[in-house]
């Protein structure tokens, strides 16, 4: 049983209410930070903890905080990114829905460290009912002196506001989020300047993911040094993984990043194995943008070592044989799933969500969807596979924001690892309409072409 720092109390009855949350030790980190530490000391603890941004990029959170410009007389803002929209990812929703005070507590401590007196939670518009849960928690915290003017008599003032988006994946990109918060289309900004210098309303701003902010609570409670001892290497602390797809126990799990991918999938403590007694075909371990891996590359690295559920091990081998931790959206495909069709749904997603600002992404995502649709529906040509490869290569790295890369990588990885499944679709379009390619050699370390040919 791994150590739990975020969800340990998530199932205590009534934990959504202030009374129960407080009785269970909630808001201790606010008392400790505001009464016994300076803002810089809080930042220092976060740095020592090695906490990496939990939204997907994995950038060290303490370092991000230390970049915040602090000119005299200019307000600074903390914005919490709750625009969780990466397919496969539903961890922030879980945290906000079941233990909302943990986020509020983390925001108070983080706002104190950064000098933000007005902090915004930007939440995806579809999570409409969670807005009520958060606003209730904020009101309770305020009634108990943890928000508002002169918090705990320390002279620190803070208001937290929840603002809904209205349906746009791109608003999870931090500068698009700021544009949206300012009442505009979610078009990412050209950087520099970075938000740390010029963010919300041109003021210095830090944007952090929900889980990152929540992790500040245990860091202050147990110290950054202790937090850094959990996990392995540069994967410190615990990580929320939202598991979905063809598994027995979909849900949100808190792991300490020392367990193997195999254990995560097959242990009853986590995913409980593949649903309906089927076999594992492929997995996207970090949200739809990260490379899909066939089973035979997923469980072991190219060096033959067990692949572990942490940043380094998941990316071991680069994109040739590895993938990424990403947002922790763990999507599992069983032996009866079609990689072409699954990739098509992702390509459609990115086409729908491209903001349209950069032509490689705006046009490229549309092309990729169209070509994949042709292949999936029996109208593909062999040259289409190379064309897809060419398009994704021309999107990657050529756009203002990482949505372009996020759209390119799933297509690239599907072709890289499942090229024969694409070729089978093109070669046997009629058969491909009636059944799936199956497991083929993907579960097996030896490339045995055991798939149906006609």
């Amino acid at each position, binding site marked *: 049983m791994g150590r739990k720092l975020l969800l340990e109390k998530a199932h205590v009855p009534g934990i959504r209410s202030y009374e129960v949350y407080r009785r269970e030790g909630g808001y201790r980190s606010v008392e400790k930070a505001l009464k016994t530490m300076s803002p810089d000391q809080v930042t220092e603890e976060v740095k020592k903890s090695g906490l990496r941004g939990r939204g997907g990029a994995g950038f060290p959170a303490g370092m991000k905080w230390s970049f915040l410009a602090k000119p005299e007389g200019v307000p600074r803002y903390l914005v919490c990114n709750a625009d969780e929209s990466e397919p496969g990812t539903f961890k922030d929703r879980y945290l906000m829905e079941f233990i909302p005070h943990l986020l509020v507590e983390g925001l108070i401590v983080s706002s104190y460290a950064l000098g933000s007196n007005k902090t915004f939670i930007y939440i995806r518009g579809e999570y409409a009912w969670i807005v009520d849960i958060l606003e209730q928690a904020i009101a309770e915290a305020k009634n108990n002196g943890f928000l508002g003017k002169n918090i705990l008599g320390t002279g620190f003032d803070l208001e937290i506001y929840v603002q809904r988006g209205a349906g746009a994946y791109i608003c999870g990109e931090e500068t698009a989020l700021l544009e949206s918060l*300012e009442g505009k289309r979610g078009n990412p900004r050209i950087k520099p300047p970075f938000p740390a210098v010029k963010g919300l309303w041109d003021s210095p701003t830090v944007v952090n993911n929900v889980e990152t902010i929540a992790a500040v609570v245990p860091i202050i409670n147990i110290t950054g040094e202790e937090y850094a001892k959990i996990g392995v290497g540069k994967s410190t602390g615990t990580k929320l993984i939202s598991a979905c797809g063809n598994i027995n126990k979909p849900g949100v799990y808190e792991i300490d990043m020392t367990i193997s991918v195999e254990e995560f999938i097959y242990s009853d403590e986590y995913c409980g194995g593949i649903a309906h007694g089927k076999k594992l075909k492929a997995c996207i371990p970090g949200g739809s943008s990260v490379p899909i891996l066939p089973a035979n590359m997923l469980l072991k690295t190219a060096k033959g070592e067990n692949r572990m559920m942490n940043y380094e091990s998941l990316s071991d081998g680069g994109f040739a044989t590895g993938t990424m931790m990403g947002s922790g959206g763990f*999507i599992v495909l069983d032996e009866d799933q079609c990689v072409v069709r699954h990739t098509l749904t992702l390509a459609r997603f990115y086409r729908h969500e491209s903001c349209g600002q950069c032509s490689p992404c705006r046009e490229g995502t549309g092309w990729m969807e169209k070509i994949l649709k042709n292949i999936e529906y029996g109208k593909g040509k062999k040259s289409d596979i190379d064309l897809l490869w060419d398009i994704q290569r021309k999107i990657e790295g050529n756009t203002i924001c990482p949505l372009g890369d996020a759209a390119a990588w799933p297509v690239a990885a599907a072709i890289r690892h499942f090229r024969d499944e694409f070729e089978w679709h093109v070669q046997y379009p009629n058969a491909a309409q009636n059944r799936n390619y199956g497991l083929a050699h993907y579960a097996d370390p030896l490339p045995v072409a055991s798939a149906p040919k006609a």
Partner: protein
Amino acid sequence: MAQFSAEKLNKVNEIIARYPAGKQKSALIPVLHIAQEEFGGWLSSETMDYVASLLNIEPIEVYEVATFYSMYNLKPVGKYVFEVCQTGPCMLNGSDDIIEYIKSKLGIKVGETTADGLFTLKTVECLGACGYAPMMQLGKHYREHLTKEKIDAIITECERNAVTNN
């Protein structure tokens, strides 16, 4: 021309008060949500012009936002809008079948509204309920682990509510 009630206007002013002076445009997305709820589930150009006047911004600033975000309806919709997720994780768990079932049950295509004005079917991209797939949004809430039986029950529930509310 419909206008907000005094209560809703208070809400709008409360939102604007969160921002620094002169940054009232920041309230646009929340105010459009309120407008869509208040004025029949969609945003007409009159509604958008009204919102522009409330926030003291140009109408085009409202149009460009309203057309960008997928939650705003720019034409009338049914009383109950089924927004069914079709992205990867939901597809792996049978969302294609669910969408087909709703189409045949309601006799409409994706994007259409039933003749009685009760139901609209939309397909949407990932709503962050991947572990509880297949799913759809209905109003403020999610309906998860969908099956054909659940769809039947939801339709019956909506029909009953529509009668009660009239």
